């Protein structure tokens, strides 16, 4: 497997790490957590849920750190874990909704957002899968193959979802 090249945003760039530091889980966390948190926030629309999913993903990586750090792309593994956590929550939500034993799930925070905010309105028109595909491909720079691996779907599906997402955003944002 090719080593995955990850774009690093200005917000997460820090001083260069020594090999020992780079090998430590804490260094990995400090380098990656802000970007994962923001990605999950864009997908879920909920700061609280994004933070919980981020914690779950990092904890899972931490428990397997000896193995994960030797992978070609620990970061890819991290995102796959985060998206898996999101998917399992969605599955549970569907199951719980069928049983009707609890109040309705928390509404999509994007839907509840101030509709004067065109950017937020644009995202609110996307499904969670479309948002996830867009975040991986556009925001984080994964190829559709890798994004497909992370999301557990085919690359072509990623491309379709991302394309649908772009179109929906364009419709709302227009020339903004």
């Amino acid at each position, binding site marked *: 497997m090719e080593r995955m090249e990850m774009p690093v*945003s200005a*917000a997460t760039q820090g001083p260069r790490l020594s090999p020992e530091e780079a090998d430590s889980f*804490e260094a990995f*966390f*400090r380098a990656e*957590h*802000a970007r994962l*948190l*923001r*990605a999950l*926030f*864009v997908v879920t629309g909920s*700061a*609280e*849920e*994004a*933070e*919980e999913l981020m*914690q779950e993903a*990092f*904890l899972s990586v*931490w428990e397997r750190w000896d193995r994960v750090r030797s992978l070609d792309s620990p970061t890819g593994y991290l995102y796959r874990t985060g998206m898996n956590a999101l998917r399992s*929550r*969605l599955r*549970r*939500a569907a*199951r*719980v909704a069928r049983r009707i*034993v*609890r109040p309705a*799930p*928390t509404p999509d925070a994007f839907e509840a957002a101030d509709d004067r905010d065109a*950017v*937020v309105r*644009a*995202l609110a028109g996307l499904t969670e899968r479309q948002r996830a595909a*867009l*975040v991986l491909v*556009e*925001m984080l720079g994964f190829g559709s193959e890798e994004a497909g691996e992370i999301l557990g779907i085919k690359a072509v599906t990623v491309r379709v979802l991302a394309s649908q*997402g*772009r179109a929906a*955003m*364009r419709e709302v*944002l*227009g*020339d*903004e």
Partner: protein
Amino acid sequence: MSDPKSVLERVGARITPREDAFERLQRYRRRRQRNQRITAGVVAVLVAVAGGVGVWAGFRGGTTVRPGGADEQAVALWPERTLAEIEAAQQRVDGGEDSWRLDAASTAIRFASDVLGWNDPMVSIQFVPGPVDAAVADVTTPPAPCPAPLEGEPISLTCLGKRAEVSLHGFTGPGGIWSVTAVRGDRTRIDLDPPFAVLPGQIVEAQVDVPEGAQAIGGGTFFGNGCQASFGSERLTESGKLDLVVPSGDCEVSDGYLYVYVVGSGPAWDPYPSDAEELLAEDPLAGRLLEPMDLTLIQAHIASDTSPQPVEQAEVPEVAEVVCELFKETKQQVRAQPNGVHLRVRNALDREILVLTGGDTFRVAASETVKLTMQTPPGTTNVVCTEQDRTKFAVVELTIVDPDGLWKSPDLECDSRDINRTDVVFDPDAGLVVVAADPTDAARAYLEPLLREGDEVESAGYPEVIPPLVRVVREGQTVATLEFVEVEHGGWTVARVSSCSEFGIA
């Protein structure tokens, strides 16, 4: 339109990562590790449900039941529950791990940060004098710097500081580790007194003071032999009362804890849980950082069935021997005597203690042995050795058997609103005093105008209790009871009459 990448990044920039994100992850991990056993229990139940053989009654206000749990009596809440677990932890600390356990203040701080999820907690600690190591920690977080609210508007919840009173005990002797045994808040209260005994199915009331925009949640978890049951209450969004319904019939639980807390913002748990997870997610000791703004958390144990158990008369002693020593929980049986239930209580400690017996409190000096007589009906009751702060440290579950049928209940069989109480003034000069050697004779003479044919006037409680007690039974129902005082010539006269309104005393 801006390119999608910049749009997405603009949205992503709206969330600011916490500066203490890694520390929060560390705390989350520690709690996960501590709760591995609980998690395993949840998985086991999910498997059982899938197989169609599990008990599953979990929904809000209901109970979930999981296999697992301890078969030992609990003495603490956190980090361990049972003495065996605490002793194992002491060995680990002796081996150099977790030295913070040796300091009560540090243990309280850890509880506030690791369990409650409070940032920068501060602690003020007070050690409680008594026979065992005990301390009360006042744990607070500072209020956020906020502008004063506009007139008529409530202060933002995020601006309020947090406070909890954390009780700690050292169970392994001087210099040993500390454990959290109770938490009490300013806005929450659970109406349960020492020795915190509850019955399966019992409703325990909790009072909550909920600020605008916050919500209150209660619940509990109980453990038994190979079984663990959790339950949750309804949520309250305004001040009031929450009912905590102790699990019943699900499994043989023996002890656990009850909690009620106030959270300042939105759902503090997984928004998409399955039922067991939802209940556990609300449990402050079960693995999530709930960040409550106020919390009351107490231990509770399931009292035994209060109905008398058939016991061979010869096997049951006439005097119960109670030894008050550190963290002892025992069970005993005793046979009722004509004047009550006899106990011999030995204080094995070097300080004065309090002994609570069925509503009465006795002081027992250091190393002293005293004889007590209780007027407690047959059934099961607890004799509790406590410190001055009413923290229990030894409990004897006493089963009182009455094979001779000595006990006759003095409880009136009518609605409490229909009960009249009349104090009788002892005034021989007025010529209205009835004195008799037998209190039932005095009672008959006093009540003579009100008695009907068939009314039974007989001793109540235990027959030779001093001062005596007499009841009137009409058509199988106790309708009046009389209390007496002894007068100069050795006789008894009526001091007080309690009666149902139908009996005829206005």
